[in-house]
């Protein structure tokens, strides 16, 4: 299934209808496996059982960032390659990315209260992720304000690409500034610094969260295509009634 074949909305609808049940099953299975591993993972010697918030907080953070990168590629698809369904992908992804970023911020606050003594600090990592969340909300607002979906798509694409500069800032904020937030311990030069007994459940939960994102995104794309068909039919009906 090449990218150009996926430019056909009907084919994407058919594909999503066939693939969604499998994706849902895979997501549930991955959460069961990941959840069991997280449950059985050992407590941290310093943080105790509180460290297990990490199994939700870190995958949510990774997916919030991954979703903006996906939206950036979709933005290039809209502006550069003129792929007809790139804007459907971008529009479907925005609320999901916002939700994951919000989960990351909330679980981080709940983790910070026992660990740092504060729900929120204005350090570089937290501030840049908050800015990412604000940009998600701005994108959603921009989608809803411009009525024609095609024109909205191009405006959102420009804004998404400009906002993509925040992603390396988030990733490297713990290196460039003196932050309270944990430094990079998984994706870093020299390999991960987390013990495998906690790293393996973390990877398992990341796989589960990614499958959840893909399921939600595919379902949202399916709905968006149907929504646009409905809008076109309503417009045709209104024009025929004259």
């Amino acid at each position, binding site marked *: 299934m090449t990218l150009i074949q996926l430019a056909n909305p009907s084919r994407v609808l058919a594909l999503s209808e066939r693939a969604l049940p499998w994706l849902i099953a895979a997501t549930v299975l991955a959460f069961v496996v990941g959840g069991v591993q997280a449950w059985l993972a050992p407590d941290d010697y310093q943080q105790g059982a509180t460290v297990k918030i990490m199994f939700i907080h870190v995958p949510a953070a990774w997916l919030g960032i991954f979703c903006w990168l996906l939206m950036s590629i979709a933005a290039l698809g809209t*502006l550069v390659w003129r792929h007809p369904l790139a804007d459907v992908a971008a529009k479907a992804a925005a609320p999901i990315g916002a939700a994951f970023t919000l989960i990351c911020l909330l679980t981080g606050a709940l983790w910070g209260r026992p660990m740092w003594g504060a729900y929120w600090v204005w350090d570089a990592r937290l*501030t840049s992720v908050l*800015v990412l969340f*604000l*940009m998600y*909300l*701005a994108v959603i*607002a*921009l989608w809803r*304000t*411009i009525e024609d979906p095609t*024109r909205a798509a*191009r*405006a959102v*694409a*420009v*804004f998404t*690409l*400009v*906002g993509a500069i*925040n992603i390396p*800032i988030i990733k490297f904020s713990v290196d460039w500034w003196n932050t309270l937030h944990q430094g990079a311990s998984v994706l870093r030069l020299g390999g991960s610094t987390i013990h495998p007994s906690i790293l393996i459940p973390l990877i398992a939960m990341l796989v589960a969260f990614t499958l959840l994102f893909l399921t939600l995104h595919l379902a949202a794309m399916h709905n968006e295509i149907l929504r646009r068909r409905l809008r076109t039919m309503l417009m045709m009906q209104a024009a025929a009634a004259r």
Partner: protein
Amino acid sequence: MGALTPLAALLVRDMQLAVRLGGGAFIGVLFFLMVVTLVPFALGPDLALLARIGSAILWLGALLASLLGLDRLLASDYEDGSLDLILMASTPLELAVAAKALAHWLTTSLPLVVAAPLLGVLLNLDGRASGAVALTLLAGTPALTYIGLIGAALTVALRRGGLLLAVLVLPLNIPVLIFGVAASNAAIVGPLPFGTPFGILCALSLMSVVIGPFAAAIALRQGLD
């Protein structure tokens, strides 16, 4: 006007319009003054407190004044059709919007920079602090204007796009605000040297002077066809 290049003519035209339209260039300064006056009413007249946060209040006021001036950047040209003429002209659109943003900066933001030391008196800032704030505003307001240019281009065709413009532009302005206030405070209090945040502030301005016109041109071309 025959001796001027098209870009220079556009610049002069925009500056003349900005000075004459909608209350003139000083409406931004007036708003700046009002915001700076509101804060002591909210906080109480504690002069020591005002002196400590004075540079932040001045930066916030300048940011908000610059934000509110943005809908005069492209919207009035869109409404009377001049924006279509600019799009169809042979001058590259990127340079044309860069010239418009330069005119906007000269007429809207430079008065804010000049007014900042005077308003610093209201906030019990001494000469050195006010000078530091004015210098950081001079370096940082181009970033605010050119990032705002992107938001203005994205919302140019919307009739009630004012709040959406602010929502789009404010997340991108946050780094400018952070480094602007950091540089102002570093000049007064330390311990950071002034050069570090000031250098980053200048870098942000230079980057936005390049990225802003290109992003705005893409947005205008896509949004106005």
